[in-house]
């Protein structure tokens, strides 16, 4: 009769021996392998779909980032220059064509007007004249009797300090136009009185 310990040891040995004689049949291994292969194929398809979606998402995100970056970039400053072309014709002794372009340097009219408002001695720096404002097709004109004709292009007009009432297209009206020391227009205001021309 063996001791309990000996019996237990022998029992375990017998069990292990018996287990070794009965391994999992190969057909079960095969069935598991086939099932895992199916799973793997399905997984790969899932991964591919996931990768494709991820790639799309990544591209969209990158595009959004680029767009956001471009929008954040400071817009290139296009410097506009005030241009005055002088001439004369039969009717006017002097014709001034005021316009803005990217070719010639110009001060910002708003700043000039602010200077005018702030200045107590503006009479030295600015000229105030009264003239008749009228719209002619794509440009505006201010005529001062037969002495002076100012043509103002619409782009410059948009930058000038002037009340909305003056800006509206309407019949010719008397306005007071203010020029700086360089002869550049800085503001146009409604005139309180008409100009009396000696020849008109």
């Amino acid at each position, binding site marked *: 009769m*063996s001791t309990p310990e000996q019996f237990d040891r022998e029992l375990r040995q017998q*069990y292990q021996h018996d*287990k*070794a004689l009965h391994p*999992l049949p190969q057909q*079960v291994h095969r*069935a*598991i392998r086939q099932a*895992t292969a199916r799973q793997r194929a399905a997984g790969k398809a899932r991964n591919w779909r996931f990768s494709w979606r991820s790639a799309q998402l990544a591209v969209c995100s990158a595009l959004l980032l680029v767009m956001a970056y471009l929008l954040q970039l400071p817009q290139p400053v296009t410097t506009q220059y005030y241009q005055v072309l002088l001439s004369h014709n039969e009717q006017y002794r002097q014709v001034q064509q005021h316009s803005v372009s990217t070719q010639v340097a110009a001060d910002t009219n708003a700043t000039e007007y602010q200077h005018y408002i702030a200045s107590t001695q503006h009479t030295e720096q600015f000229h105030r004249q009264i003239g008749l404002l009228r719209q002619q097709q794509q440009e505006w004109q201010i005529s001062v009797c037969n002495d002076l004709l100012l043509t103002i292009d619409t782009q410059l007009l948009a930058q000038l300090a002037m009340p909305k009432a003056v800006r509206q297209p309407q019949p010719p009206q008397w306005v007071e136009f203010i020029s700086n020391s360089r002869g550049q227009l800085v503001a146009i205001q409604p005139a309180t009185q008409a100009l009396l021309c000696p020849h008109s």
Partner: protein
Amino acid sequence: MALSFFWQGSIAPDLSAEQLYSRYVHHADVSALEQLVSLYGDALYHFLQRQSDRALAEDISQQCWLKLVDHKAVFAGQSSFKTWLFSMARHCLIDELRRLKRWQSQQLADDIALQQSCLAEQLQQCRQNQQFATLISALPFAQREALMLQLEGFSLTEISQITAQPPETVKSRLRYARQFMQQHNAVSGQE
């Protein structure tokens, strides 16, 4: 951790069954499942075969592993993976035995006293053949499964979990089974 991403193909040999299962489920690592099969496939099949027959054991083994492959059975980590696996297999086996109307007879066989006369004949054969398998097959279903599970390395608590029986019942079944085996000197007879 980050490097493990590049080593998905190879598995460290010291990974636990629970870690292997996790690798299979979360990383679709088929080699982890294959390693689980190689760890427990034979033991499970052996247990099922001793509790039923070769065909049924084969069928239930396959069912269990395929449930795992298809994620139809999910290990929740409330016990060890091996305990859970054997528990699932036992349920499948009992369901199948019930379906085949073989469960009732297996349950009745739980009472060893009723079997004494039968056993005497079987033991005679066992002594002659000196086969462990024959002797263990002579045990009633419940005692046999308790003893098989203990020999497989499960603790009393784990056997209790697998068989859904109180530990005291398991202990008593083990005592009867061991007494029976020792009494008939099945093991020493092999020497």
